[in-house]
């Protein structure tokens, strides 16, 4: 299974001279399964360039959305495969008891916020509530609600060979837990992340910044370190970088994470990074 990062920024796209290395596009990953499955995790602005690279012979793409905040949804209407009539596009998102996923996505993907509606897209489009356990081709996909404002899921994707990617881009497991972490059973996201081969996780804030953003739904670098240690994860990619953080500041946060997690590999959550699991 190959994992590619096409957007690693949180909250708002942030192009510019100070963000060229980690990138300015918002949350988007591509997972290519060993049997050619194409899974896109989140539809941030990184999905536009990614869509142009989906090979012509691919007949099905699954877009797994963690939640409907704009930085995770904004790119969907610019994803070239949804304009291909020969393609099946399955969009998965967090369940809600009040409104189907199509209606919730349609609030943004419809006039006046967007010129056309989802139904007008030429691809064969299917929308699904994320299921606790699903199978996409040979990949097992687990989803579970995590601590973040509004219904939000994280994903755990397991290859037939047993390799695991855990994706929790927006996650504040430390909210109301003092001291953090508590035991695993009282820790949001633990089951998704436990012993994953790669954990792509929210690392938006420094410890100082977190103090002013309690309850905003994101983690500090120290909280991510504690979470990764508890989940026994040895490969961590800090992700969802704050729009105000320059490359040098993200470097510093990644360096701090590496110091806090001796023996673990901290891999840059940078646009263009590729991981083979």
């Amino acid at each position, binding site marked *: 299974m190959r994992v590619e990062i096409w957007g690693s920024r949180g909250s708002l796209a942030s192009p510019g001279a100070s963000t060229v290395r980690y990138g300015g596009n918002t949350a988007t990953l591509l997972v290519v399964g060993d049997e050619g499955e194409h899974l896109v995790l989140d539809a941030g602005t990184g999905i536009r360039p990614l869509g142009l690279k989906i090979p012509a012979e691919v007949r099905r793409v699954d877009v797994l959305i963690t939640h409907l905040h704009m930085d995770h949804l904004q790119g969907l209407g610019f994803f070239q495969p949804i304009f291909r009539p020969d393609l099946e596009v399955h969009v998965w998102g967090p369940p809600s008891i009040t409104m189907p996923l199509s209606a919730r996505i349609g609030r943004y993907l419809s006039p006046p916020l967007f010129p056309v509606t989802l139904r007008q897209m030429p691809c064969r489009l299917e929308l699904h509530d994320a299921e606790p356990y699903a199978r996409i081709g040979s990949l097992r996909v687990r989803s*579970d609600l995590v601590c973040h404002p509004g219904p939000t899921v994280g994903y755990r994707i397991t290859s037939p060979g047993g390799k695991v990617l855990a994706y929790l881009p927006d996650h504040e497991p430390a909210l109301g837990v003092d001291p953090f972490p508590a035991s695993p059973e009282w820790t949001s996201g633990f*089951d998704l992340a436990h012993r994953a081969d790669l954990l792509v996780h929210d690392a938006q804030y420094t410890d100082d910044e977190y103090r002013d953003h309690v309850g905003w739904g994101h983690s500090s670098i120290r909280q991510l370190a504690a979470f990764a240690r508890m989940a026994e994860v040895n490969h961590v990619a800090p992700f969802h970088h704050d729009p105000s953080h320059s490359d040098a500041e993200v470097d510093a946060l990644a360096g701090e994470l590496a110091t806090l997690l001796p023996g673990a590999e901290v891999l840059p959550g940078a646009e263009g990074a590729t991981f083979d699991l």
Partner: protein
Amino acid sequence: MAQLPVELILMRQLASYLATPIFLVGPEGELLFYNEAAEGVLGYRFDEAVELPLAQWIREFPLFNTESGEPLSVDEIPVLRALRERDPVHGSLLYERPSGERVPVLATAIPLVGQGGRVLGAAAIFWPVSGGANA
């Protein structure tokens, strides 16, 4: 032990911030958590009680009918009724503190229904009748 549903995790986080006494049980009626305010009423620290199965906590926290003084059966305990009937339940009862003193308590219990309609447990909010929530 597996991770609990995030709805319960958030409920515990909320309860741990509130000064309203809150008691939280899981789908089998097992005790999952009670907060500091509840410790004040119950007379036991949560650390001493941690995650007792149903059969045990109903012995540790003796509850009685306000009128008759008879012990409440499992079917009468508000938090367990809310869990079983999937309805909010309000009632008064007597709680016997570790000292043996019986205090009148008002309790309101709600079933905790998670995303997808699963019953994840129930929560009871309670307070001594005379003293108010800060007693």
